[in-house]
């Protein structure tokens, strides 16, 4: 067993570092490879993503711990509900941010796909933030179930657990490598592959986490399944519209 202990103070430090690192990578990529929209539009998209992410991550984070949240609500302890530990989840942040950006793009009539530039910064930023989750240990809701594997970690209670945070860091680094800008992909595809891969990963890895279940999965997994379903519908629409455009294009040539 690898001793790690529980150090919750490091969580906000690494979360902040994750934002800073993600933004630094974003700036570097944008400066190097350019952007499909101008700077004011980009910042509006980022603002929408940030607000949507905060709301989505908190809503799903509280919903994930629904027995605690329900007990706090029934007892009228709104402060306890507001300050419930952990209480934020990356899946909710990604889905909330994505939906908010789509709404703002519709309002502002932005037709270009804007998510590709966020893929590598998100991979790196989340990976850095996950170091804080690992160090927070039992104070964070991201630790794994008990295991006797040689790489099991001890968060201070003498129980060996799956280091699910480390698994995710490795997954994100691999995903960043696969989806690196060196790989040529049509506009918008990179973000959708990232989102679909991450949601599929979380659906799988969350089986290793001791969270309250609803019909065999936790609420984050259900949100992942819903997100994957939505991505599937969007992919089907894209394919359908591409097929409809094809005969007209073929007739012109």
């Amino acid at each position: 067993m690898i001793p790690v202990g529980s150090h919750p103070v490091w969580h906000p430090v690494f979360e902040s570092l994750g934002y800073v690192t993600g933004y630094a990578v974003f700036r570097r990529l944008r400066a190097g490879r350019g952007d499909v929209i101008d700077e004011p539009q980009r910042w509006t998209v980022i603002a929408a993503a940030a607000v949507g992410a905060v709301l989505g991550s908190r809503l799903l984070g509280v919903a994930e711990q629904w027995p605690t949240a329900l007990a706090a609500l029934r007892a009228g302890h709104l402060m306890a509900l507001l300050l419930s530990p952990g209480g934020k989840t990356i899946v909710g942040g990604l889905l909330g941010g994505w939906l908010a950006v789509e709404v703002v793009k519709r309002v502002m009539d932005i037709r270009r796909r804007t998510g590709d530039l966020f893929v590598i910064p998100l991979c790196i930023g989340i990976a850095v933030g996950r170091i804080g989750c690992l160090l927070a240990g039992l104070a964070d809701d991201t630790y794994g179930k008990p295991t006797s594997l040689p790489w099991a970690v001890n968060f201070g209670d003498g129980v060996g657990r799956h280091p699910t945070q480390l698994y995710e860091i490795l997954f994100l680094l691999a995903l960043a490598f696969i989806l690196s800008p060196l790989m040529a992909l049509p506009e918008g595809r990179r973000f959708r592959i990232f989102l679909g891969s991450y949601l599929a990963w979380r659906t799988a890895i969350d089986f290793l986490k001791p969270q309250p279940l609803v019909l065999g999965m936790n609420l984050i997994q259900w949100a992942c399944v819903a997100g994957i379903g939505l991505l599937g519908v969007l992919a089907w629409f894209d394919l359908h519209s591409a097929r409809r455009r094809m005969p007209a294009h073929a007739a012109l040539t």
Partner: protein
Amino acid sequence: MPRLLERVNFPKLVTVLAAIFGIALGACGLTALVGARFNGASVLPLGIVELVVMVLSAVGLLISLTVWGVASALGKTAAGGPDTIRLFDDSDKTKS
């Protein structure tokens, strides 16, 4: 009010406030948990700081979003709206 859009960079302001609010929100919950487990003696002041940051950033975020929305709406109205459709285009009459 529309000039406010040129003077204040609302998207950047909202992004920064949302990030601060998000960090404080998570940190505050974590500190509350640690406080509950270890009687809170050593972490209570930190929890209060986090709570103050959380409340201030939330209020700032709400105000910024409201002012941004109102300024954008007024800006659109003042500019006549980009989507205004002219039913009768009489520009040709001036030519003859």
